[in-house]
Each structure stands twice: as structure tokens, then as C-alpha cells.
């Protein structure tokens, strides 16, 4: 991988599309066509989601989040998150791996935007505490939910993010005009799908070991809620249903940026939503307000 030169990359990336026009409307279908949006806007949208995931896993694995260097100048605050107690050795290693992956994604996307003559956005305000409580209430899990309270709860928290990340990249990647950036986005999409499968496999595995389906049921309640907010695009989790994909062709779901925003903002479909849920002050960048 390291063989190709950065000079070549820089020269190639210099000619890429740049952020200049506003995003088009997101559409509302379950299998959306690619949107006509500048690559850097898409990358900044993805960067917000990677900040969210990186903060979640870093805090779960280590108790502290992104460094001020990684969060960039002018970064917002993060509410909630703590080292999960009671991880087995294997679970700790899983959490560490995903934390490192999401941190690397933050850095890689920042770097790519800069090389593409754009400006990476700083970390927006992120709220885990209130968002997970609100999500639990809306999903019918209960009035509060702390994903940092136990290994099982952590897996449900991870479940909230991973499949959404996959659908976001699956939806956004085809819209990317630069071939190298498309390739990188596909590479990140794959990593998110590995994570998603890992989390789903661990959830059913842990349920089998403990002879307790509680947390798989929570995950499916979360899935139902995501489906309501994000245009369907969900597959129930069970031992015989690990992959999230459409039942006809076994192709992963793609979500529009609007559908992703409604999930992370924890709001019902509709135009003009610009904040809520995990992002109390909205995303940073030009893709932050729903068009539908």
C-alpha cells in the first residue's frame, strides 16, 4: 500500500472537485441515486460521523477521547462517555481495535480533505448522555441507557453506530467524483462493515453464552427506531441474520445524507432539522440541515 508516492497523490488530488455549491436535496427513497455534492462536503459529512464514533470507542476503551490536536481548532465539547468496566481481554482488544480504526479514519479524512484543497471541519459538540437516554426512550428500551455501563451495553451502543456508518458510506461513496477518494471511501466503508458484522456477531454470541437475549432485543429495538427515522434500510439481528442487507439481492442498504442526519439527530423525517440527538448543535460543514 505504501508503495505509491505522495507526490503523485498530491498532484492527482489537486485537480479534484472542491466545495463550492450547496448540497442538493437528499431525496427520500430507500435506494437513493448518488447525490450531486462536492467531494469535500461528503468527506466533511463523513468526518463528523467519524468524530462521533472515535469519541465513543476511545472513551469506552480508555476513558478519554480525542486529543485537541485530532479534534482540530475550535472543537466542540463532548458530554458523557467513560471507560467500560468488566471487559474480558478479548472484548477489550475489540474495543481498542475499533477505537484505533475510527481514530485513524478521523486523521485520514482530515488529511484527504486538506490534500483536496479543502478545510476539514472541527469536532462538533457531541452528547452521548442525553442522546442515548432519548434514544432508549424512543426505542422503548427505558427512560435511560448508559452504553458505558457494561460490556453488553457497550455492544448495543456500538450497534447504534456501525450499521448507520455502513449505510452512510454506501449511500455517499457512489457520489464521489475523484477515483482515489472513491477508493478510500470504499476502503473505509469496508472497515465499517467489518465492525458492524463484528458487533452483531458478538451481540448474538454473548446472548447465547449468557442465555439472555436482552441485549439482542435492545439492538433490535434500536434497529426498528433507526428504520423509522432513516427510511427503513434495516435487518433484524439474530443468529441467522448477521448481515444487514436487502432481502432480495443481499445488497447492503444505502442511506441519503438526510436519512443519516435524521438518525443521528434522533428526529423524525422532515425538512429543516439541523441539530439534535448526538449532535446538539448540529454537524459542522455544509451538509448539516435536512432537506426532507
Amino acid at each position, binding site marked *: *500500500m505504501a508503495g505509491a508516492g505522495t507526490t503523485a497523490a498530491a498532484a492527482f*488530488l489537486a485537480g479534484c472537485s472542491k466545495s463550492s455549491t450547496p448540497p442538493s436535496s437528499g431525496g427520500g427513497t430507500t435506494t437513493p441515486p448518488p447525490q450531486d455534492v462536492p467531494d469535500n462536503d461528503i468527506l466533511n459529512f463523513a468526518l463528523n460521523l467519524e468524530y462521533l464514533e472515535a469519541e465513543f470507542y476511545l472513551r469506552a476503551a480508555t476513558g478519554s477521547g480525542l486529543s485537541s490536536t485530532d479534534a482540530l481548532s475550535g472543537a466542540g465539547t463532548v458530554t458523557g462517555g467513560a471507560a467500560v468496566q468488566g471487559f474480558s481481554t478479548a472484548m477489550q482488544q475489540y474495543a481498542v481495535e475499533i477505537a484505533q480504526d475510527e481514530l485513524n479514519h478521523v486523521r485520514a479524512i482530515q488529511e484527504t480533505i486538506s490534500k483536496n484543497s479543502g478545510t476539514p471541519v472541527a469536532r462538533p459538540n457531541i452528547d452521548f448522555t442525553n442522546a442515548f437516554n432519548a434514544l432508549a426512550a424512543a426505542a422503548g428500551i427505558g427512560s435511560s441507557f448508559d452504553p458505558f455501563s457494561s460490556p453488553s451495553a457497550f455492544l448495543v451502543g456500538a450497534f447504534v453506530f456501525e450499521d448507520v456508518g455502513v449505510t452512510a458510506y454506501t449511500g455517499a*461513496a457512489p457520489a464521489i467524483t475523484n477515483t482515489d477518494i472513491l477508493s478510500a471511501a*470504499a*476502503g473505509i466503508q469496508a472497515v465499517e462493515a467489518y465492525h458492524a458484522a463484528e458487533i452483531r456477531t458478538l451481540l448474538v454470541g454473548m446472548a447465547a453464552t449468557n442465555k439472555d437475549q436482552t441485549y439482542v432485543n435492545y439492538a433490535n429495538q434500536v434497529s426498528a427506531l433507526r428504520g423509522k427515522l432513516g427510511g427503513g434500510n434495516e435487518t433484524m439481528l439474530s443468529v*441467522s441474520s448477521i448481515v444487514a442487507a436487502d432481502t432480495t439481492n443481499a445488497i447492503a442498504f444505502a442511506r441519503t445524507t438526510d436519512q443519516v442526519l435524521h438518525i443521528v439527530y434522533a428526529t423524525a423525517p422532515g425538512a429543516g432539522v439541523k441539530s439534535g440527538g448526538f449532535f446538539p448543535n448540529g454537524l459542522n460543514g455544509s451538509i448539516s440541515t435536512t432537506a426532507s
Partner: protein
Amino acid sequence: MANTETKQLDSIISSRRALLTLGGAALAGLAFAPRAEAQSAVSDTDILNFALNLEYLEAQFYNLAVSGVTIDKLPTPIPVSVNGAAAGTVTLKPSFMKVPFALPPIQAYAMETAIEEGKHVSFLQGALGTAAVSMPDIDLYNSFNALAMVAGLGSSFDPFASDATFLIGAYIFEDVGVSAYHGAAGLIKDKKTILPAAVGIHAVEAYHAGLVRTSINALDAGTGTLNTITQKISAARSMLANPSSASTTTYTGSKADDIGLTTTMVSLNGTSASYSSSTIVDCDSNSIGWGRTTSQVLAIVTGTDPSATSHKGVFFPSGLNGNIK
């Protein structure tokens, strides 16, 4: 021969580990560097047919594992001969039997994957219509033995023998499928229909790979027995896809593009590598999945050099059908 190869594999593994310990920051300058290989223009039809060959292979493997029959003999058959072209044959060990699964979850995963890979075959056949190719000859017997030799696993390997060997067999395919769709994505010209579908299948292959790798790691349970096998397979794939342009004995693994299941130390948000991490995800040091050119994928599935003018062998003894072969 085997000794030399084993040494090369060891060097690939250790250099890969060395690379990992450098951490993301040290390699940040390399982020998103484009692949050096240039590919001649290929049509979307060529790419989809290339994918169809790989999906035939995966669908046959999983359906044989769970049902004991080829996909054209399933209760709801999936055709292997389309558009009037004869299908190839599937070579299996004498007295082949489906996998005697002892672990219900593994059997359930196998069944799910079998169904999904079958759907990929049907989808691609439908998308290609009159341009779809038939199934080429597929070898699921001598192929695994040959690969076992290359990987330094011994003279034979039967993926249909047990839950564990089935998972290893699945491991051989899934990460390759991910890297193949990844590499092909940038070549696709139809960005409105074909690219989204390819990107969606790519994600499903990565789900499968994540499922298989998580399951193997759980079954390994810290003993290293299965994980060591995955390291050797990953090293073999890496070597097949990136042979040294000079003597094979000088191969250093600098282009290694695969990692097996192991543990490695990472630094996370600190400055020293003090956290033990798993390697469930098959990705580079920037946590980006690897993409492979069609030539590299052909090299892995046929055991040939990526630069060969035609690729035949291992899983595809007569080569692939279509224009990318």
C-alpha cells in the same frame, strides 16, 4: 521450496507487524495514496462478469458446505449455465459430504452466507442479462490442498471437515472478495446504477468477512491454533498478489496487503503503543480496507503471477469466463 516460502511468509508477517507498530500518525503522509498499477480500460460488463465468476465460486462453496449440493441442485435452483453457454464442473473430493457442523451458530452463519452469495449470483446474472457468463470450471478440492502448500499449512486441507476448517475455508474467500469489489469500484463507469450496487455488495462481503474473522477469533479462544492459520493464509494471499519483481528471496513484504488474526499494540489517543488490539478488520495502517486490481485477484484465485497473460489454476482450473481472465 516450502522452506523458502515459509521464510518469506514469516518476513511478510513480521514486517506487517512492524508497520502496524509505527501507528497511523507516522504513516499519515501516505493516506489515500493511489495504487501504482494502471489498468487498461474495461467495460462495466467485463467487471460484473468478473464479479460473477467470484460469486459462483463463493456460492458453490457455501451451498455445498451447508446443503451438500451445487447451486443448480438446490430446491430453488440457481442456474449455472446461462445464455446458451455450457457450465463448467465443480471438482470435489471423492465421497464429498457437507460439513458436519457441531456448532449451531456456525451452521447458521454458513446458511445465511450461502443464501446471500446465491443472491449475488442471481443479481449479477439479472443485471448482466444476455451478457452474463456461465459458471467456469471450479475446483474445491485440489485448490485447497495447493493453497495449503503455498501457505505452509501442510500438503492437504479440507474446508468441509469441521466447523473450524469451514471457517478457515470461508476466510480464504471473504477478504479477497472485499478487496476485489473495492479495487473494481473505481473502474465502474455507470455511477448511477452499477456503482451503487457494486458498493452495496462490497459492504456485504465485508460483513461476511467480519463475521468469519470474529467467529474464528472466538473459536481460537486465545490458543493461537486457528489464528496462526489465518496469518499464513493472509501472508500467502499477500505474496500471490504482490510478488517481488526481483528474486523471491529478497521479498521484504513492503507491499503486504493482508493481515491475519493476531494481536498488536496500538497507541490510541496516547503517545506510546500500550494498548493490546485485535485485528478483526483486514485493513492497512490507516484503517482503510485494501483494494486489489483484477490482476491481483486473479493471481490469488488461480495461483498465478499478476502479470501473467492468462490466469488458470487453483480454484479456476480452466480460467474465468468473460474478458477479465
